[in-house]
């Protein structure tokens, strides 16, 4: 059974953004943009690495069935269990089943977009299992009951005073407003939970097909705690995270932290191949990998749109996006925000449900310039706008018929030179009907959508003539 995602109201939300959001988000993004620029400048082969990263991701997408089959074989060889989830609902059912079989009452979670995507916490709680987010930012927003405003620093929209008040109320203590003290309190509270949890749940940054290895990149160490302390580890990972081998991984590790936080490497990068092998060692006795499809295999069908699956989730595109910086993460109405969210959500949830998102962009192209795996985000945005407007095999067009008719005429005129020229000669005929003080106004539907807001200059100015004149004038001025 497929979940139906609620309609994403980007425009409505973005009209009422609380002013604190862009302020906090821009502080975060400017720090990350600066850090990234410094790291990139140190690495002369940066552009070469991006190209290789892009090529390997492309190659992996085109051969995904082979690598996933290999991955499954290798994880099982290492003593792990592999589960395939076609939908979010199936993934939730699998995780709940594992929890029930092992009589789990408490879960510790490390930050993971895949578990956000399948809304796992709700499902666990509904089944009477306590699920605790342990990344500091995620812990704070879980206590606050809100969503993330930024991919790397999810609670950046909250002030330290608000966090202190939250800790005081929820933990029944008198919390100070010092960020370092607040982090210390979280460490103490969560330490107890790590030690007593029955199951650790994580996502994963990469899956190495060569050896069946789960790669997790974190800074706080909570990801390591979740996979070291409990006897049971369940990783929920999108099928798009598979990469061919360890040699490929070196490319992505060099790209990821530099693009995300401006670090050379994140503090902890762990490589987990199956459950623990030695007695006396820590780490889980049982390791489960849930491979999540949830629409990804369907996205592969679109040769332009599928490049979204190259993403390694660094957030660099959001950090430079003028739209994201003004509305923050909530407006994108999904687990993933920013330019990458604008091209993923419409493909995952349907071009009707997320039809506003391809337009949530100025097409300035800054996202494509920084993307470590060279996803052509503006190209995909334009492609999805076309899918939204024309409809596709999965959903109908969302444009009113007159707009579509006008657009078809315009595309005809732009495709055929003689039609364009004829139109340009004929259009001034209508000038006298709408002309007021040298401007056109009060035009009929659908052109009134323009003239309601501002007048239109009269038709007649012709670029070709103007250009011809300018050029001949220039040539006579300065002969070479």
């Amino acid at each position: 059974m497929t979940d139906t995602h609620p309609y994403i109201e980007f425009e409505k939300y973005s009209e009422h953004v609380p002013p604190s959001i862009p302020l906090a988000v821009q502080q975060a993004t400017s720090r990350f943009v600066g850090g990234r620029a410094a790291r990139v400048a140190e690495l002369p082969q940066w552009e070469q690495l991006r190209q290789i990263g892009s090529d390997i991701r492309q190659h992996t997408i085109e051969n995904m069935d082979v690598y996933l089959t290999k991955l499954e074989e290798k994880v099982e060889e290492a003593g792990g269990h592999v589960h395939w989830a076609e939908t979010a609902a199936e993934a939730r059912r699998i995780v709940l089943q594992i929890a029930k079989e092992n009589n789990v009452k408490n879960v510790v979670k490390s930050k993971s977009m895949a578990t956000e995507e399948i809304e796992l916490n709700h499902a666990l709680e509904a089944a009477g299992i306590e699920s605790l987010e342990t990344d500091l930012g995620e812990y704070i927003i879980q206590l606050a009951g809100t969503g993330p405003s930024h991919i790397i620093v999810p609670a950046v929209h909250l002030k330290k005073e608000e966090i202190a008040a939250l800790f005081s109320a929820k933990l029944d203590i008198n919390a100070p407003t010092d960020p370092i003290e607040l982090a210390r309190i979280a460490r103490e509270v969560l330490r107890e939970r790590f030690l007593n949890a029955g199951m650790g749940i994580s996502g994963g940054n990469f899956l190495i097909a060569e050896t069946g290895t789960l790669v997790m990149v974190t800074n706080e160490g909570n990801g390591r705690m979740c996979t070291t302390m409990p006897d049971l580890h369940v990783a929920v990972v999108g099928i798009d995270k598979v990469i061919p081998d360890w040699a490929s991984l070196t490319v992505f590790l060099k790209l990821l932290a530099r693009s995300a936080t401006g670090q050379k490497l994140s503090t902890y990068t762990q490589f987990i191949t199956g459950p623990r092998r030695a007695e006396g060692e820590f780490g889980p006795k049982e390791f489960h990998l849930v491979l999540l499809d949830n629409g990804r295999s369907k996205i592969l069908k679109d040769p332009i749109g599928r490049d979204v699956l190259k993403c390694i989730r660094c957030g660099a595109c959001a950090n430079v996006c003028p739209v994201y910086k003004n509305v923050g993460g909530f407006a994108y109405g999904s687990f993933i925000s920013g330019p990458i969210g604008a091209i993923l959500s419409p493909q995952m949830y349907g071009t009707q449900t997320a039809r506003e998102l391809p337009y949530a962009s100025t097409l300035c192209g800054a996202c494509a310039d920084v993307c470590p795996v060279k996803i052509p985000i503006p190209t995909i945005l334009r492609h999805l706008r076309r899918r939204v407007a024309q409809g596709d095999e999965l959903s109908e067009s969302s444009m009113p018929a007159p707009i579509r008719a006008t657009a078809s005429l315009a595309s005809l005129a732009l495709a055929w030179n003689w039609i364009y020229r004829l139109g340009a000669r004929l259009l001034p005929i209508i000038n006298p009907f709408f002309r007021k003080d040298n401007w056109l106004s009060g035009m009929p539907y659908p052109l009134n959508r323009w003239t309601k807001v501002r007048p239109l200059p009269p038709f007649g100015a012709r670029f070709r003539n103007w250009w011809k004149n300018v050029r001949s004038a220039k040539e006579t001025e300065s002969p070479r």
Partner: protein
Amino acid sequence: MTNLVIENIRRSLGRTDQSPLSLRPDIYEPRLPESVDSEVARFLDEIKKLSGVSQKLSPTNIASALKALIAEQNIRKATVWNTAHLRQLGIADTLQSLGVELASPNADKHEIAQCDLGITEADYLLSETGTLVLRSSAEKPRAVSLVPRVHLAIVCPEMLRADMHQVFAEAKDSDYLVFITGPSRTADIELTVTLGVHGPKNLYVWMMDE
């Protein structure tokens, strides 16, 4: 037995179970090492940039360095990797003679959680990023570098590798491998950098100068 996800992928890509795997694009040329001295200097310098404490140390000065560390960090209980090199350096004995209680690295997790200090070696070091690479085993449990609030790694120049490419070539058969690049950190509250949120707050790296 094929599954539905793989079938859907193949249908979308227009492939079958007979479709060949195309050739993976080549990767970059791995970084080459400079002289040992400059690699060591770079490694120690990178750790300092990450708010870690790093120094070269002669084995004869280990006892006094441990004494200073114990006083500075108020260490009462410690756990140490059970390796030949650390035994040879007499780490556990020195700690005990300084009045520090020792927990076995294989002790119960609740006991490891009471330790103030965890001492490990490393299997490899990355000079470019100031990274410790640790392979885990029964003698070298993964919790020792994670759970205590202070982590001390005693390392030597032979462990240095110029590029992570060489590390992976040697270590990809491990069941658990971890890169440690500086102490645990977060900037989740108002972007204020805070050390030691879940992992160790303090990272010490002593490069044996033998």
